[in-house]
């Protein structure tokens, strides 16, 4: 790959990746803001603009309605609802961005959880005229529940409050007070007008009292490299590569993706659940061996000793390994509309590359995502509800607490009858 970034294109190839999730209520201008980011970074093509201009004229809009750039499926237009998470892309010379654009209203929790699960940053929008509403708090809470490391509150429609510093400061104070109750690692609040473009890509002259970055500047510069856990080495074996032919007759490599820490050839490692220790003989890719592997590299690890290692096993370090356990406490978000989670029900559980069966031993409480109140009256967990459960699995899981590692701490439950993914879970404690 070229290392001389002389052109935009060449630079894009050395840029890194930022995934962010957006959330907002119906009218707070989320689609316009995303449209604005796409438009001002020249991600939108002429034929798309032409189609949006035509649609804006047809609707009688006085301006080019950038929200239409993110217009969805016909099924959605017909029903006037947003069905699902949409993924959108734009790039600047510094970074490529993947937006998980989650609808604010229907199915909000399920979609927000989906979008936030892989996000480095969550962007929550509020309407400056309305201030914080129930949904803003809910979105912020879900972002922190999913341990999204960076949170941005965009106070939108500043043009409609005459770019008032007082309005902005009040919303910022409200939100900061609320965020203090959550586990928000990094919060940035930006006053914007998505419609007019203020503070979206460049700093606006109409907010002289604001000395922070524009939204895009923040997205481009927020430091995400240190968000990953580079301390606890974790490598879930995904697939065993055994060519069994020609020059590779005795080759046996464990393919997978690094989900934590750094591994190097020569390192002493432990393989779970067997607990055997050995050393790493080599870390390979199709492009040749590498000196070290770190998340999210996909590599193939060869071990010095021939051990019985298969999919679902985990390579880690002898003195830094998850404790295999069949008892898992977790926060669970229920995502299925046609069934509910209740004690005694059984599911398939997929965790890293390991699949087992799990029975719900206990529903400890249901969490009200608006008030954060814990309802310990038991019962069941329905669509878009979040609760704390205790599970018992048929085979041990090799899990970490979700707050230490989002990959080895996350799991899904699958209904064995319908095969649907019915829940996303985050391990709170093991053992």
């Amino acid at each position, binding site marked *: *790959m070229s290392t001389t970034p002389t052109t935009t294109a060449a630079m894009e190839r050395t840029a*890194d990746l930022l995934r962010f999730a957006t959330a907002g209520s119906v009218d707070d201008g989320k689609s316009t803001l995303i449209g604005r980011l796409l438009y001002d970074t020249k991600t939108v093509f002429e034929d798309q603009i032409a189609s949006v201009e035509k649609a804006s004229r047809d609707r009688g809009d006085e301006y080019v309605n950038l929200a239409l750039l993110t217009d969805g499926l016909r099924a959605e237009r017909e029903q006037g609802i947003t069905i699902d998470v949409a*993924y959108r892309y734009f790039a600047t010379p510094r970074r490529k961005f993947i937006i998980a654009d989650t609808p604010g209203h229907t199915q909000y929790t399920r979609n927000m959880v989906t979008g936030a699960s892989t996000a480095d940053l969550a962007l929550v929008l509020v309407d400056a005229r309305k201030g914080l509403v129930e949904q803003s708090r809910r979105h912020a809470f879900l972002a922190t529940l999913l341990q999204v490391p960076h949170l941005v509150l965009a106070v939108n429609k500043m043009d409609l409050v005459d770019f008032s510093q007082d309005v902005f400061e009040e919303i910022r104070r409200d939100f900061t007070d609320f965020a203090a109750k959550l586990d928000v690692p990094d919060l940035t609040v930006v006053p914007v007008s998505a419609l007019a473009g203020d503070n979206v890509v460049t700093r606006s002259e109409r907010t002289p009292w604001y000395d922070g970055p524009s939204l895009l500047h923040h997205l481009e510069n927020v430091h995400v*490299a240190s968000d990953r856990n580079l301390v606890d080495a974790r490598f879930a074996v995904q697939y065993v*590569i055994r060519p069994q032919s020609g020059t590779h007759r005795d080759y046996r490599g464990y393919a997978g993706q690094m989900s934590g820490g750094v591994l190097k050839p020569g390192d002493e490692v432990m393989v779970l659940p067997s607990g055997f220790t050995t050393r790493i003989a080599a870390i390979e890719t199709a492009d040749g061996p590498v000196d070290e592997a770190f998340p999210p*590299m996909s590599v193939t690890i060869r071990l010095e000793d021939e051990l019985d290692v298969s999919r679902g096993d985990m390579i880690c370090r002898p003195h830094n390994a998850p404790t295999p356990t069949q008892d898992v406490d977790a926060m669970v978000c229920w995502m299925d509309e046609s069934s509910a989670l209740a004690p005694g029900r059984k599911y*398939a559980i997929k965790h890293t590359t390991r699949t087992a069966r799990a029975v719900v031993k206990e529903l400890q409480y249901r969490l009200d995502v608006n008030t954060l109140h814990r309802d310990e009256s038991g019962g069941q967990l329905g669509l878009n509800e979040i609760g704390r459960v205790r599970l018992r699995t048929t085979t041990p899981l090799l899990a970490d607490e979700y707050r230490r590692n989002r990959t080895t701490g996350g799991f899904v439950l699958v209904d064995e009858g319908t095969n649907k993914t019915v829940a*996303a879970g985050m391990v709170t404690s093991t053992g």
Partner: protein
Amino acid sequence: MTRSTAGRYQLTQLQALEAEAIFIIREVVAELERPVLLFSGGKDSIVMLRLAEKAFAPAPVPFPVLHVDTGHNFAEVLELRDRRAAELGVQLVVASVPDALERGLVTEPPDGTRNRIQTPVLLDALERGGYTAVFGGARRDEDKARAKERIFSFRDDFGQWDPKNQRPEVWGLYNGRIHPGESIRVFPLSNWTELDIWSYIQAEGIELPSIYYAHEREVFDRGGMLYAVHEVCRPREGEEVFTARVRYRTVGDASLTAAVRSEADTVEKIVEEVATTRITERGATRGDDKFSEAAMEDRKREGYF
């Protein structure tokens, strides 16, 4: 790709996309019984095949490749299709639309374009092969229907996509469980853009059919798009044939795929061109998506990719 990273313990975005795609491909092979990769010889499918090769090296690619052949092909593309499959030692299964016409599985549409009748031929080939997982090179930046589709896209026993019945996809936990008759379409390039594809082709030194690069060709203008004179795509009365320097941004059915004017005759120039281009890939070259705003959505619901 070489390992010039974005920083200490950081991957460049292209390396991160490659790592994600390899993870997805391995996941399918580990969990689903009979995968197959759709392979046309076009650039996205060639990138897919390269990623499959890398995912299992030094072992061979552990699944066959399938081409739904409309019979309206560019010779350069078929040549590379056959050669790449042979080089990698993978089995190439060809599902032929002309054969399907002969068998009466489908009938030729009055306008002679075969895009719509590809879908039954594809579904027939999948059923005959018993394939439960089908890799495609589709990207979410191509179309608004695709923007909402999962990486593991569940299809019912008619191959249909239901946007309201998609499985939540959280973290890297893909659910490939199916009942008999159902299948999963898998899109490892979901998060790639056209520019990423070209940057990867450049970084990897991947060979493509020559028609992707600027060349002189006899073309005619139809509805603002330049079509090559081809046995299945003849100028109508009043459409003047002229020679232009063009290249193809997408390679599909020759009767539907238009060329764009271009001087980009190397991969470096194409990366530059794509980085500055102002028209979407499909908008510029695909007659089939122009028919309606929701053309792709409708085709996906019918079982198309």
